[in-house]
Every structure is written in C-alpha cells, then in structure tokens.
C-alpha cells in the first residue's frame, strides 16, 4: 500500500511504544505470589487462557506481558490453518460460544515470528499445541526445543483425534495418556508439560489421573463446554460450525467443581499431586481466589479479556490484595485451602 494512500496501519506495533499508560505497575512486596509448575517457577499465578490472548502482542497495548505469570498462546498446530467459516461466535447469558477452529499460522511461523517477539519483551510463554495425531504433538514439541522464552507446553487434548473418528483425545483416558506420554517424552526435560482437560466427560478425575500417570507436570482445566445457540430468526444454528465452546462466568461453577474434584483426588492419594492451572469464567481477583482455594496453583483468564483487555493485571492486583486481606503469607498457603 505505497501508492499514495497512507494510513494503512501496522497493527502489530505495540512494540514501538513504551509501557502503555494503562499498564498497572506492580508494587514490589506484600506477599510471595510465586508458583511452581513442574520445573518452572512463575513470579505470579495469573496467565492468559489459550485462544484469548493471541500470542501476547495485541494485549501489550494494555499491559506488559512480563507483568503476569505467563502468556498461554493460542493453540498452535503443525501447519497454517484457516479456521472455520464465520459466524464464529455467539454471546450467551454470562458467557459466549466460540467456534474458531484453531486458526493459526502453523508452528514454523509461530516459532520464527511470534515467540521471539514475546521473549524479547520479557514475557514467559506457555505454548499450547494440538494435532490430529499423536505424531503431530510430538513434532510440535520437538520444534519447540530451545525456542526462546518457552516455560511450558500445554497440550490441548480437547481436539479431535483423527484416528478415532474425530472423538476428542480428552474424552478417553487411554488417548489422553498416549498424547501426554509422547509429549512428555519428546519435550525438553526442563520444560513442564500441562494437559488441558475438557469438562465434557463423565469423570474428569479418570482423565486427569491418566494424564498424570503419563507424566503430565500439571493439569489445565477447564476447556470450554460443548454448546450451541439457534438463531430464532433464521431458525438455524448461529455458528457456521453448528456447535461451539461455551466459556465465561456462566461456566465458572463447573470449572471450580472440576478443579476441586481433581485436587481432592490428589489429596486422597488417587493420583500423584501436580499443580493445576484453573480457568473458566474468572472475572475478578476473588474469582481467581476461588480457584486457588479449590486447589489451583495458577489461573488463566480467558473470555473476560474480551470484556476488559487489561483484566489479567487487574485480577492479579485484586488477587494479591485478597490474599493479603485474608492473612495469607504466600500464594502457596492458599492453594487448596477450601479442602481443610
């Protein structure tokens, strides 16, 4: 566009600005918010949920990526993917449906272009990956070895398993095990592997246990619930993909229950204890605290970013204040406190 028409913006220029005015600067002390995910120590427990923060760049207009615990990227697949047709979303009471279909540039462009940007900005990155075959997960994991700023891999197993008539991996303990085992084996030993679980199962504890047995260093829960909206004017499904994933505060009670159930199973000795990254409708610091009390060692903020693009840092501040007000000396002391 150099034909006499100016004004075509470079939309990816957040890096050209100093810390944006809306960035909330974190006060130093107060309370130790550090949290451990396997071998990774995050300075604080607030992350972005996969698919709700792109690769970190756009939100840098609203806050410093390094200010939060980590950026969990949009799920990356082996090759560029167009994603589904539009409409891709529908608003629902206290939530939304999405059916993006994992649009993305593919792992190569991601590693070459997006990861370095975030690393240069001081951000910690947890890379979400998915594929249709176990081999895809392995290839993605290997491509991430030595990549800058990667502090974790989140295996999004809530995606369809091509070998199994498209049933999602996370619906079955055995297929969940296979993916996580393969990713854990392929990954840099110093990089924790998180399994991202679907709530759309009869027993999430069974899936969680299979993932932990397969070597997962942590569990991210929950992914969206399968839902649908029908347009009463067109009298057809709103989403081009017919069904979509339900997220937002509407699903928070389901998410808190999942985290609580799995943490309880760990306390019961039904499976090894690994950190849980809790998510599903977190809107405030008190919502984040709810997940932590239920057993989460870290939290992800997803849909609410669309309502409030600076939500992750706001929630971090609110969480810090809430922990201090309740007399906790550290984040760690609050993890699973509702089980006492």
């Amino acid at each position, binding site marked *: *566009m150099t034909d*006499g*028409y*100016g*004004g*075509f*913006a*470079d*939309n990816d*220029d*957040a890096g050209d*600005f100093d810390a*944006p*005015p*809306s960035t909330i600067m974190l006060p130093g002390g107060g309370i130790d918010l550090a949290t451990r995910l396997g071998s990774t120590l995050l300075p604080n427990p607030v992350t972005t949920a996969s*698919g*709700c923060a*792109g690769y970190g760049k*756009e*939100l840098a*207009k*609203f806050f410093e990526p390094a200010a939060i615990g980590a950026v969990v990227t*949009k799920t990356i*697949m*082996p*090759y*560029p*993917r*167009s*994603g*589904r*047709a*539009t*409409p*891709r*979303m529908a*608003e629902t009471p*206290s*939530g*939304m449906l*999405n059916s*993006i279909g994992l*649009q*993305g540039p*593919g792992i190569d462009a991601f590693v070459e272009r997006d990861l370095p940007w975030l690393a240069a900005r001081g951000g910690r990155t947890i890379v979400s990956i998915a594929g*249709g075959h176990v081999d895809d997960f392995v290839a993605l994991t290997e491509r991430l070895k030595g990549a800058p700023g990667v502090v974790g891999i989140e295996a999004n197993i809530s*995606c*369809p398993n*091509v070998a199994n008539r*498209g049933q999602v991996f996370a619906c079955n303990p055995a297929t969940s095990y296979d993916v996580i085992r393969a990713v854990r084996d392929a990954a840099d030993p110093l990089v924790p592997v998180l399994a991202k679980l679907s709530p759309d199962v009869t027993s999430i504890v069974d899936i969680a246990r299979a993932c932990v047995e397969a070597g997962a260093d942590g569990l991210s829960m929950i992914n969206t619930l399968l839902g649908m909206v029908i347009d009463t004017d067109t009298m057809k499904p709103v989403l*081009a993909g017919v069904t979509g994933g339900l997220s937002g*505060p509407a699903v928070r009670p389901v998410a808190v229950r999942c985290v609580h159930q799995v943490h309880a199973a760990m306390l019961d000795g039904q499976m090894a204890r690994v950190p849980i990254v809790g998510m599903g409708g977190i*809107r405030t610091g008190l919502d984040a605290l709810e997940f932590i009390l239920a057993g989460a060692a870290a939290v992800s903020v997803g*849909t609410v*970013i*669309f*309502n*409030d*693009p*600076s939500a992750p840092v706001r929630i971090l501040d609110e969480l810090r204040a809430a922990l201090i007000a309740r007399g906790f000396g550290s984040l760690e002391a609050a993890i699973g406190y509702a089980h006492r």
Partner: protein
Amino acid sequence: MALPLQVQAEIVGREPAGAYHRMVLRAPGIAARVEPGHFVAVAIGGADSAMLLRRAFSIHRADPAAETIDVVFAEAGRGTRELARLRVGDSVNVVAPLGTPFPLPAEPVSAVMVAGGYGSAPMFALAEKIVADGGSVAFVLGAATAERLYGVDQALAITEDVVVTTDDGSEGVRGFVTGPLPEVLTAVQAGVVYACGPMGMLRAVTEVATEHDARVFTAVEESMACGVGVCMTCVLPVVGDDGVSRFVRSCVDGPCFDGTKVRWDDAGTIPADIEGAAAMGAH
C-alpha cells in the same frame, strides 16, 4: 496505529437522531488519537452484567478540545437496548480508538462517500479532512426509509453534491445507493470511493467503483468478540499483497479494507484457496 485507551466515559450528551441515538462521551485521552474509520468498543453494564462482549460503534466525531467522542447507534438487540436506556451522567467503559482507519489520500482527490443507514457516521469527519486537504467530496447516502438516513444535513454542510436514496422512496431517489452511484462517479470524476454499510452494499459499491477506475475503501461490520485482535472471531477472506488469501481480522486489519481485496462472495465460507484451508480437511 493509535494506541487504544480503556477508560470510564461519562455520557455528556444524548439525543435521538431519526431512527438512531446519538451519544456523546467524555473519554479523556481518546479524542486526540482518533482518525476517521476508527471504532470504539463499549462495555454493556458493569461487573455483574450478563453481557460480556463489548459492542463496536464507528466513532462519528472526536473533539480533542472537549475530550469527547460521539457515536450514532441503532437499537438492534439486547446490548444496544441497554445503551439506549442510559442517561446523561451515567458512565460506560470504552476502549478506543480501535481498528485500522480509512486511508487518507496523499494528494488532493475527488472522493465519493457512500453509506447505508448509520454507516454514514464516520464519513463526515473523513470528508471534512479530504476537503481541508484540498480535495473535493460528494455523498451518496442511502437507507431503507427516510428516518433511517443519518446526517444528510451534515453532508450538505460540507458539499452540495449530496444524493439521497431510500428503498421505499420516502426521501430522495427510490432504490439503492448503487442506482445513482455510476452517474455521480462520472460527474465528479471520482478518484476514490469510501463506503460503509451492509456487506451486500459494500460488494456492489466495490464493483461499481472498480468499473469507474476509482479506488475503493470499505468499512465492514463483522461480529466481534474482543475488538482488539486476540480472539479471531471477526475474520474475512482478504487477498494479501502477496496474492495469498487469508482470513484476516476485521477488528485490527480492518474494519477499513481496500474493497477490491475483500472476497465478498466468499465471506461465511472457507474458500478452497485460503491459507490453511487444507489443514481443515483433517478435522
């Protein structure tokens, strides 16, 4: 691009405008950053609202001295119904300016502004800029009915070349904007067309403009969840400078696009040749 700000904006003005509402917001820091074609994302309700997604509106006017921006909006559903209930003194949370504005001509040019309904909202500030830069403008403003026209008076304050169309003939020429458009383009020897309105209109305007060898820039309205480029809900198939078609985000790469680059007929589908379509086959 302008860095967006997120601020709590006070409603300092409210007035009916035909079938629409005009709302003036005091939004410190924002007005000075606004260029024609930018939009504002308005939150519906407060921290306990059941409506999580912001609503997008073209910024109609921005007054840096008063620190205000205006929007003109239709009551279209739940969210805009809530907005319509607000009164002067209430406040709303806004993020702005967002999106890629209309590209401005580098040299004086003859421009035609084509708009449907409230689609005219961003056009007046744009037209004034073009005129101030030594260019000239004409307007073709259309709507379903007379009361759904917006800003004919504002257009007339800028130029006498204003053609109005309504579907029902209740004002101006009966029919669509594309009826009189060819004649207007020829009459003013248009170098560029700026258009804002429904998808079908943008497609038709792009066709007509292209036939008349005019550049054409269109502002689209896609359903947006985030408005800031992170969610990928708002995509359109657009041909890149490299000739490859991609699903691009209308919230950051648009809403203002070169109309000839948008694959209008393929919106709402996955064209076989779009980047990454092959990977969708698998699952």
